[in-house]
């Protein structure tokens, strides 16, 4: 196992290098300067501009710039164009909101996907199974921003309930009520994440469960005369759940992935909205750092998923 992890980490190094190159090139080969309008601003003297170019290494040729920016990034010194704050500090401030959103969304996803998958697998090939299939494709096909707006129309427009932001703005609340308020603000974005999540994961769960139900040990359990319930939930389900642990490895990358639109709509101060703000402001260092961190998280997440899978399922061996 140790050698497997080490080998995977070694293979990751060239991939990581490619990731940094691509993130760098995408922003640095784009037409236009990173600070549009600065040349025209009379308050910005040529000295200040030169100083800025020096700070962000824009006076260097492309390759030297890549090296210097990478050095800044990996020593944590890279600074945002917007306010000269260290990008890692910016990300760190947004992290708790995004992580709590992800945790709630994951709980909702699992709570929906696992029963739905079991139900579809037990009724495989019937109209019930087909119904679950159509439902899950509906969940995948729903544009998340549209659902968000429909929910906003319902809750804010019709019922006048505040749902936007991290908490209700401008109202002092005792700790317990404040916590409930925060949870409520988290709930709607989490539900929207969970719709897509349930749709996708229930397909995996159905496949996994359907595979388990035709195994020999399940037939043995039935032959012993165990009740249908015991066969499904004790014998088949335990095996069907094993591949689902890999999902926890895939949670890491979802921190940034789909969050951009939903966090922007709900004015939820997480990583996704930070990314959107950075794109709007052409904040190259933040965009690059976010891309790189997200890619590293995917690499790590896949590794964690593989390791977890081997840990829970002794039949899996990596040599």
């Amino acid at each position, binding site marked *: 196992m140790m050698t497997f992890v080490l080998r995977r980490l070694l293979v990751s190094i060239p991939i990581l290098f490619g990731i940094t190159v691509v993130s760098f090139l995408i922003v640095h080969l784009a037409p236009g300067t990173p600070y549009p309008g600065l040349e025209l601003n009379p308050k910005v003297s040529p000295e200040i501009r030169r100083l800025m170019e020096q700070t962000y290494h824009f006076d260097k040729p492309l390759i030297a710039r890549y090296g210097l920016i990478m050095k800044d990034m990996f020593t944590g010194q890279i600074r945002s164009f917007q306010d000269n704050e260290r990008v890692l500090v910016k990300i760190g401030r947004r992290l708790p909101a995004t992580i709590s959103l992800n945790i709630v969304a994951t709980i909702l996803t699992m709570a929906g996907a696992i029963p739905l998958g079991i139900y579809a697998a037990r009724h495989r090939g019937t109209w019930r199974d087909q119904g679950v*299939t159509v439902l899950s494709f509906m969940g995948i096909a729903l*544009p998340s921003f549209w659902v968000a707006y429909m929910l906003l129309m319902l809750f804010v427009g019709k019922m006048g309930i505040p749902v936007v932001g991290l908490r209700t703005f401008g109202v002092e609340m005792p700790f317990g009520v404040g916590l409930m308020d925060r949870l409520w603000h988290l709930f709607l974005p989490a539900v929207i994440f969970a719709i897509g999540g349930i749709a996708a994961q229930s397909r995996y769960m159905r496949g996994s469960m359907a595979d388990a139900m035709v195994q020999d040990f399940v037939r043995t359990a039935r032959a012993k005369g165990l009740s249908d319930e015991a066969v499904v939930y004790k014998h088949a389900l335990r095996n069907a759940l094993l591949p689902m642990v890999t999902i926890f490895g895939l949670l890491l990358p979802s921190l940034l992935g789909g969050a951009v639109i939903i966090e922007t709509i709900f004015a939820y101060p997480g990583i996704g909205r930070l990314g*959107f703000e950075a794109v709007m402001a052409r904040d190259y260092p933040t965009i690059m750092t976010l891309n790189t961190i997200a890619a590293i998280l995917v690499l790590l997440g896949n590794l964690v998923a593989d390791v977890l899978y081997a840990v829970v399922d002794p039949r899996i061996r990596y040599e």
Partner: protein
Amino acid sequence: MTSAPTKPDVTGPELQTTEPYSPWRDFRKRFVRNKPAISAFWILVALAAIALAAVTMGGTGAYWPYDPVNVEPPAKLQPPTWSHPLGTDNLGRDVFARMIHGTPISLTVGLIAVAVSVTIGILIGSLAGYFGGVVDNILMRFVDMMMCFPTFFLILTVVALLKPSIYNIIIVIGLTSWTGTARFVRAEFLTLRQRDFVMAAVAGGLGNGRIIFRHILPNALAPVAVSAVLGIAGAILTEASLSFLGFGVPPPAPTWGNILADGKVYILDAWWLILFPGMAIFITTLSFYLVGEGMREALDPRLRVD
């Protein structure tokens, strides 16, 4: 279709015909029996007809009295009525006309983006799977790398940094969504490479290009077709999301995402600007997903159980 059965496969009473076995007829019969898939297929046919009608009628035409880009401020933000069945937007433009004219744009973005991504995916996947070894290793590490990026954020970054145009969007979506196809094609090639007919082609002294494109690729196209149909849905959703964030197809061209984006400011006053375009996106993507899934099931030999 990689392993066509040698004798007629009797999967139902209606299949017991005297005609000889044909994989294509078998596929069609199995697809038609999948009710969600076949309904979705007819929805897509209807959408294609609408798109065709919209393209042929140009601006204002015989079909519908209102022009999709004609601004009429006195008639702004009208709820649905008989003359404006889907209401009007903040500039008094007829939403129904804009939705109809948005249809060909949204469909085209999906189709061309997928054509780009499938082409790249087939090229990279077949090269990696056919040559193996170092070529395979390098190409697949590149695929791994591309799969690490948060796709939507990457697309958003590139589209935001470039000038807004429909071509940029199509190309960027195509360039970022080929990794799945590449993996499928590679896997197919790895197995097909070992088959006797490929050995025969190699022994016959055929060139690599001919073996790849004439002998192996036709046998690997079925899963590619499925992933392409599913990919169209993804591309349409991505375009709509980009338009929604203000980085999509530039105005005044109407797309479903654009109409929604224009309407989001009036969310509490004009529900019709949100509901209808969203519905259109939803129904279209759902139809593509269901057709793709129906194709996958009809092609999957393991599902021949009923």
